[in-house]
C-alpha cells in the first residue's frame, strides 16, 4: 500500500506545477479579456447583453466537449495559416479554460461596475471627474469586492476543469485521475482528486482573504493574501523552471495496454540514455496528429484505427497488405515512420458469457445475429459511432434489444453480472480470459485487422540510437503475453502498476 502511495505522490510535484501553470495562465488571460470588456459593458447595455449571452452560452458546453472542440478548430486555423500552431497540449487547454473562466469574472465585473449608486456617480460627474477618473477614484474601488468574488469563483472552476486538459495532452493533476480510472488504481485517482481539491480550496481561501481585505478596507489583509498567493505560485511552479533538453515524450491513449506499452518503450529509451516524459490518456484523434507535429515522439496505435479514422478507408485488405499501405501513407503524408507491428492484435471482439454460449450454441457472429433481438448490448463510449459497427451490421443482421455505453472498466463486470448479454470487448484484454468469456468468431471478416504498430515522429525516424532501442519490440509480443500483462494491471487483487508490468513484459519478449 505504501508503495502505491509513494508512486502516486512521486508524480505530484511535476503535475501540480503544470496544473498551476495552465490554471493561472487561463485565469490571467480571462481577466485581461474581461476587465476592459466589463468597463465597456457597464456603459453600454447592448454590449453587456451580447457579452454576457456569449459567456453564458460557453458555460453550457461541457468542459470536456469544449476542450475537444478546440482541437479541430486549432487544426483548421493552423492549416489556414500554413502551420505553426500547435493543436496539442498547452494552447487548446489554455483557450478552453479561459473561455470557461469568462462568465463569472465578466458577470461580477459588470454587476459591480453598473451597480454603483447613481448619486455617487452624479457626484463624481458634478465634481468634474473625467470618465477615467470616475472609474479610477470611484467605480473601480466600489466594484472591487464584487469583481474579486467573481475572480475567486472563476479560479475554483478553472482549477477543477483543468483536470480535463489531460485529454488534449496538457499535463495536469487529471493525468493521475484518468490513469487511475482506466487501470482501477484508486490510489492514483484519490491522489489526483486530493491535490486538485486542496489546490482549489487553498486558492479560494487566499482569494477570499484578499476579497475581505478589499471589502473591509483592510489593506494589510489584501497584501498578505497576495503575498501568500505569489509565494505559492513560485513554489508550485518551481519544477517547471528546471530546464531539460532533448526530452522524449511518449504518448498513450487512455487504457491499460497503452500505459503498459508506453512504460515499456520508456524504460528501453531510458536505458539508451534518453530522458523520458509520458503523455497519457490522449484521445485517438489527438494522438496521431500530435505525433506528426512532433509534440510527442513515439506511441503505439492500431492498424484498423488509422485505416478507418485517419485514412478514411472503408474496404478491407489482408493484414500484410494493410500494414504496407499504412506505412507508405504515414510516411508520404506526414513523414511518420512506422517502425513495425508488435506482434499482437487488439481488435473489437464480441464476447458472451460461457453459459449463454453453451446453452444457445453461440460460436460466430451469425449465431449472435440469430439471438440478438433478446440480447442487451454493452459497449465502450465510442463503438456505436465507429465505422466498424457499421461494417459488422452490414455483414450480419444484428439488432439488439438495447445498447448501453460503459467505460471499459465497468463493461466487463456488466457482462459478468448479467446486466448486459454481449459486449464489444478488446481482443487483447486480459479480463476476457479471466472471466471465462467466449469470443465469437467473425467468419465474414467484417472487422478490420487491429495490429498494434509502433509509430515514430518525423524527427525520430532517422535517430539510429532511438530506432535501435525500440527495434527489439517489433514482432516480440504475443497476444497471450499482452493479455496477461493487461490483466496484471486490470485485475482487482494483487494489482501491478503499468511500470511494474512493463518490466515484467520486457522479460517475456520473443527473440
Amino acid at each position: 500500500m505504501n508503495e502505491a502511495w509513494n508512486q502516486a505522490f512521486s508524480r505530484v510535484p511535476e503535475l501540480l506545477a503544470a496544473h498551476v501553470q495552465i490554471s493561472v495562465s487561463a485565469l490571467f488571460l480571462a481577466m485581461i479579456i474581461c476587465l476592459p470588456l466589463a468597463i465597456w459593458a457597464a456603459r453600454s447595455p447592448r454590449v453587456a447583453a451580447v457579452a454576457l449571452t456569449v459567456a453564458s452560452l460557453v458555460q453550457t458546453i461541457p468542459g470536456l466537449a469544449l476542450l475537444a472542440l478546440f482541437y479541430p478548430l486549432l487544426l483548421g486555423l493552423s492549416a489556414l495559416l500554413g502551420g505553426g500552431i500547435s493543436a496539442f497540449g498547452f494552447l487548446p487547454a489554455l483557450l478552453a479554460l479561459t473561455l470557461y473562466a469568462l462568465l463569472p469574472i465578466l458577470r461580477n465585473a459588470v454587476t459591480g461596475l453598473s451597480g454603483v449608486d447613481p448619486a455617487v456617480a452624479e457626484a463624481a460627474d458634478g465634481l468634474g471627474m473625467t470618465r477615467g477618473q470616475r472609474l479610477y477614484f470611484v467605480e473601480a474601488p466600489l466594484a472591487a469586492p464584487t469583481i474579486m468574488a467573481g475572480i475567486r469563483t472563476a479560479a475554483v472552476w478553472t482549477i477543477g476543469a483543468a483536470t480535463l486538459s489531460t485529454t488534449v495532452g496538457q499535463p495536469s493533476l487529471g493525468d493521475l485521475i484518468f490513469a487511475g480510472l482506466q487501470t482501477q488504481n484508486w490510489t492514483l485517482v484519490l491522489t489526483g482528486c486530493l491535490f486538485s481539491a486542496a489546490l482549489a480550496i487553498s486558492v479560494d481561501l487566499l482569494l477570499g482573504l484578499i476579497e475581505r481585505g478589499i471589502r473591509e478596507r483592510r489593506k494589510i489583509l489584501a497584501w498578505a493574501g497576495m503575498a501568500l498567493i505569489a509565494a505559492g505560485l513560485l513554489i508550485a511552479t518551481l519544477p517547471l523552471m528546471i530546464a531539460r533538453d532533448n526530452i522524449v515524450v511518449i504518448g498513450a491513449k487512455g487504457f491499460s495496454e497503452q500505459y503498459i506499452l508506453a512504460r515499456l518503450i520508456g524504460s528501453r529509451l531510458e536505458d539508451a540514455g534518453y530522458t523520458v516524459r509520458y503523455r497519457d490518456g490522449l484521445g485517438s484523434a489527438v494522438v496521431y496528429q500530435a505525433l506528426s507535429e512532433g509534440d510527442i515522439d513515439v506511441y503505439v496505435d492500431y492498424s484498423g484505427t488509422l485505416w478507418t479514422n485517419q485514412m478514411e478507408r472503408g474496404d478491407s485488405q489482408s493484414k500484410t497488405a494493410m500494414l504496407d499501405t499504412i506505412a507508405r501513407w504515414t510516411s508520404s503524408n506526414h513523414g511518420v515512420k512506422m517502425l513495425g507491428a508488435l506482434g499482437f492484435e487488439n481488435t473489437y471482439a464480441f464476447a458472451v458469457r460461457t453459459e449463454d454460449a453453451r446453452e444457445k450454441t453461440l460460436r460466430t457472429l451469425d449465431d449472435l445475429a440469430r439471438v440478438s433481438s433478446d440480447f442487451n448490448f454493452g459497449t465502450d463510449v465510442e463503438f456505436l459511432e465507429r465505422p466498424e459497427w457499421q461494417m459488422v451490421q452490414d455483414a450480419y443482421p444484428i439488432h439488439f434489444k438495447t445498447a448501453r455505453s460503459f467505460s471499459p472498466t465497468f463493461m466487463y463486470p456488466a457482462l459478468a453480472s448479467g446486466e448486459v448479454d454481449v459486449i464489444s470487448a478488446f481482443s487483447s484484454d486480459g479480463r476476457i480470459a479471466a472471466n471465462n468469456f467466449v469470443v465469437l468468431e467473425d467468419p465474414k471478416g467484417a472487422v478490420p485487422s487491429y495490429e498494434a504498430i509502433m509509430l515514430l515522429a518525423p524527427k525520430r525516424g532517422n535517430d539510429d540510437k532511438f530506432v535501435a532501442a525500440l527495434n527489439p519490440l517489433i514482432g516480440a509480443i504475443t497476444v497471450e503475453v499482452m493479455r496477461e500483462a493487461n490483466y496484471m494491471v486490470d485485475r482487482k487483487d494483487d494489482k501491478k502498476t503499468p511500470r511494474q508490468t512493463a518490466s515484467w513484459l520486457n522479460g517475456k519478449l520473443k527473440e
Partner: protein
Amino acid sequence: MRVTGPSISLHKVSRDYGTVRAVDSVSLEIAAGSLVALVGLSGSGKSTLLKMINRLVEPTSGTIRIGDAAVDSIDAHILRRRIGYVFQNIGLFPHMTIARNIAIGLELAGEAEGRAARVGELLDLVELPQDMASRMPDQLSGGQQQRVGVARALATRPGLMLMDEPFGALDPVTRDNLTDQYKALHDKLGLTTIIVTHDMAEALYLADRILVMEGGQIRADATPAELLSGKVGEEAEALVAIPRAQAAHLIALGKSS
C-alpha cells in the same frame, strides 16, 4: 460684502427629451452675487435648467454664459471643477474618509499642498468638528453628510454654487439650521448661488430673487416681497398661498392660546 461669483446669462435655452420639451426657450440674466431660487412643481423643468448650467444636461438649443464665456467653450469636466454642485442625494464617496471626500476636488486639480489645512478650514466653515475628518461617511447623520457635501463643493473655491433641492431630504430642524447657515456662507464668500426647491417657504426665506417655473418656462420673476404682495400673477400666487395660509393659521393659533 465682496462679490467673487460670476454673472450668468441664458439665451433661448431649450431641452427636449424625445417629444417632451422640458425647458422651453428660457432667456434669463442673473446678476453676480445673487441668491436665486428656482421654484416649481415636479416636472416643471427646474432641475433640468439648473443642470444645463454645469452641463450635466446638454441643451438642445440656445446658449448659456458664465461671465463672458459660453459653457461649451471648454471641456465639461473642466467647467464643472469651477462650479460647486450640491444635490439632494448628496453622493459622498462611501469608500473615502470625510477628509478625502472634501479634498477630492483639490486632488483632481492636482493641488497637493495644504490639503489638510483646507479640509480643517472647510469643516469649520460648515460647522462640523475637526475629528470628523478621519471618519467614514456611513458614520455620519444625514445633516452632517450634507454639510460635508457643501464643504466638498466649496473646496476648490468656486464662485458659482448650483444646488438641487440640497436640504429636501432632511428633517425640518436640521433643514432650517442648514438653510440659515448657507445663507450666511453665501454672503460671506460673495457667491452666486442658484438653488432649486419645491418649497416656497424656503425660497421666500432664503433667496433675494425667486423664479417660478411651470411647463418649462419661467412664469414669474420677482423678489420675495413682490411675490408676497400678490402682484405677480396667478401661478405665483397659487404657490405663495400655501405658506401664507399656514403662517396665518399659526399666528391665529398663537393668539387664541
